[in-house]
C-alpha cells in the first residue's frame, strides 16, 4: 500500500517535471496558430532550457547569496507543489504533508523568494517587478484560498486528496458554487501565472512587465531553473484546476491499469486546458496594472459568493 503510494508519488513528480515544459510549449503553439503566426515546435521550451543550462551564469556585482539561492528554492517549491496536487492518484505519500492551505502557503513562499531576489541586485526594473508581483500576489492569494474554502466546505475537508476523492465520486449534481469558484480559480491562475489580462509572458516592454522585470538579472542555469519553475507552476495550477473541477478519471487504489488510464486522461485534459488558455490569451487584451485589483477583486468576490451560495443552496444536501 505504502509502496504504491511511493510509486504513484514518484511517477507523478517525474511526469510533472517532464511534461511541464511541454505544456508551456503547447500553449505557445496554440497561441501562434490562433494568431496566424507560424508556431514554434512543441519541444521549443526544452531546447531553450537546455541552451540556458549550457550557458555561463553572468552575475551582477551586487548580487548576494540570496539571489543565487532563490532559483533553487523556487524550483524546489514548485516541484513540491506539483507533487502535492493529486492528479494521477489520490494515494500519495506527500498528500498528508500539505493540504490546500499549505499549498497556498507554498506558492506564497516561492513568490516571496523570487520577489526578494528581484530586489536583490538593486536595479529599478527588478524592484518594480517585485513590487508588482507582491501586489498581484496579495490580491490573488486570498481569492485562491477562498476557492479552496468552497471546495473544502463541500467535501468537509481541506486535504486535497479527500477533496478530489469526494468530488470525483459524488453522483452528478450541479454545484453553482463550484461553477463560480471555477471561474474565480481561472482568473486567479491567469494572474498567478503571469498570463495575458494581467501580465504578458512574452513581453519585455519596460513599463508593462511584471514577472519578466523581476527575473531580468538572471542568466544561465539560474534562468533555466526559474523558467522551468514557471512551467511547473503553470502545470501545477492546471492540474489543480483539473483536480478540483474535472476530477473524473483519477486513480484511487493500487491499480496499474487505472494509473495508466489516469495518465492518458490527464494528458488529454491538459491539452484541452492549454488550448483554452491560449484562446483566452488571444481573445483578451492586457490590462493596465491598476485594473488588476478590479480583475482580482472580481475573482475574490466570485469566490466569496460561491461560498455564500453554497451555504444557502447546497448546505442541506
Amino acid at each position, binding site marked *: 500500500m505504502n509502496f504504491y503510494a511511493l510509486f504513484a508519488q514518484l511517477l507523478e513528480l517525474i511526469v510533472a517535471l517532464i511534461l511541464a515544459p511541454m505544456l508551456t510549449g503547447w500553449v505557445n503553439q496554440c497561441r501562434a496558430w490562433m494568431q496566424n503566426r507560424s508556431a514554434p515546435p512543441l519541444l521549443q521550451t526544452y531546447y531553450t532550457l537546455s541552451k540556458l543550462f549550457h550557458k555561463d551564469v553572468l552575475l551582477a556585482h551586487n548580487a548576494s547569496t540570496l539571489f543565487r539561492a532563490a532559483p533553487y528554492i523556487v524550483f524546489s517549491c514548485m516541484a513540491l507543489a506539483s507533487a502535492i496536487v493529486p492528479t494521477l492518484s489520490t494515494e500519495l505519500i506527500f498528500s498528508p504533508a500539505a493540504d490546500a492551505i499549505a499549498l497556498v502557503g507554498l506558492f506564497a513562499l516561492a513568490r516571496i523568494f523570487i520577489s526578494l531576489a528581484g530586489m536583490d541586485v538593486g536595479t529599478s526594473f527588478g524592484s518594480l517587478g517585485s513590487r508588482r508581483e507582491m501586489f498581484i500576489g496579495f490580491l490573488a492569494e486570498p481569492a485562491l484560498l477562498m476557492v479552496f474554502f468552497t471546495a473544502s466546505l463541500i467535501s468537509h475537508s481541506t486535504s486535497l486528496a479527500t477533496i478530489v476523492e469526494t468530488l470525483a465520486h459524488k453522483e452528478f*449534481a450541479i454545484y*453553482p458554487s463550484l461553477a463560480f469558484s471555477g471561474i474565480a480559480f481561472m482568473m486567479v491562475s491567469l494572474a498567478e501565472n503571469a498570463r495575458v489580462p494581467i501580465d504578458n509572458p512574452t513581453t519585455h516592454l519596460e513599463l508593462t512587465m511584471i514577472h519578466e522585470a523581476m527575473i531580468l538579472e538572471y542568466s544561465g542555469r539560474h534562468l533555466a531553473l526559474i523558467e522551468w519553475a514557471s512551467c511547473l507552476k503553470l502545470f501545477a495550477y492546471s492540474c489543480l484546476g483539473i483536480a478540483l473541477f474535472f476530477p473524473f478519471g483519477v486513480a484511487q487504489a493500487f491499480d496499474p491499469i487505472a494509473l495508466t488510464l489516469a495518465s492518458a486522461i490527464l494528458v488529454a485534459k491538459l491539452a484541452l486546458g492549454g488550448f483554452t488558455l491560449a484562446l483566452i490569451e488571444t481573445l483578451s487584451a492586457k490590462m493596465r496594472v491598476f485594473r488588476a485589483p*478590479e480583475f482580482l*477583486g*472580481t475573482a475574490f468576490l466570485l469566490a466569496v*459568493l460561491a461560498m455564500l451560495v453554497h451555504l444557502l443552496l447546497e448546505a*442541506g444536501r
Partner: protein
Amino acid sequence: MNLSILHAVPLAGQVINLCAAIMLLLGFAMLAQRRILTLINLFMMQGAVLAVSTAIVALTTQQHHLLWSAGLTLILKVILLPYILHRLIRRLSVKWDIETLLNIPTTMLAGIALVVIAFNVAQPISQLSGTIMRATIGIALACVLLAFLMMITRSKAVPQVIAFLAMENGLFFAATSATYGMPMVVELGIALDVLVGMVIFGVFFFQIREQFDSLDIRHMERFKER
C-alpha cells in the same frame, strides 16, 4: 406532493439553483458595471435567465400559467425593454460611462453584506414554503436588495431605471420561488405597469434633459423646498 416533486426532479431543481446563482451573479455584475451598454446587456441576460428558470419550473411542476409568465418575461424584458433602452440612449446621446456615488469596491462590500442579510431573512420563509425552489428565495431577495443598492448609488437617471427594472426581476423571481408565481391577472398587471412606467420614464428623461441639459439627477436637488 411537494416533497415527491423534490425527489422526482432533482436535476430540474439543480438547474433552477444554478439559474438563481447566475441571477445573483448578474446582479453583482450590474452593480459593478461602468458601461451603460453592458449594463443593458446584463439586464437582458438576467431577464433571459429568469425566463428560463420560470419555464423550467412551469414544465416540471405542471403549473402551466407560469409558462405564460415566462413568455411574457422573455418578450418584455429580453426583447422589448432593452430595445427601448437602447433607443433611448441613442436618442438622448447619453454618455457611455456611469458615474457612481460610492466607489465600486465599497459597493461590492455592501452588496456582500446585503446578501448575507437577505439569506438570513429568507431562511424562515423558505422553511415555510414548500415549492421546488424554496432555497432560492434568499437569492431572489438578495437580487432585489442589490438592485435597490444600485438605484441608490447611481447618479444618472438611465442606470437608475435599469436598477428599478432589475428590482422587478428579483421580485418576480421571489414570487415564483415562494408560491409558484402570482395569479395571472396580477402578473399581467405588473407587466403593464412596468411598460407604462418605462414610457413615463422615457418622457421624464426628455423633460429633465430639456430642463437641465443633462440626465444627472443631482440637478433635481434644486427642487427641494428651503
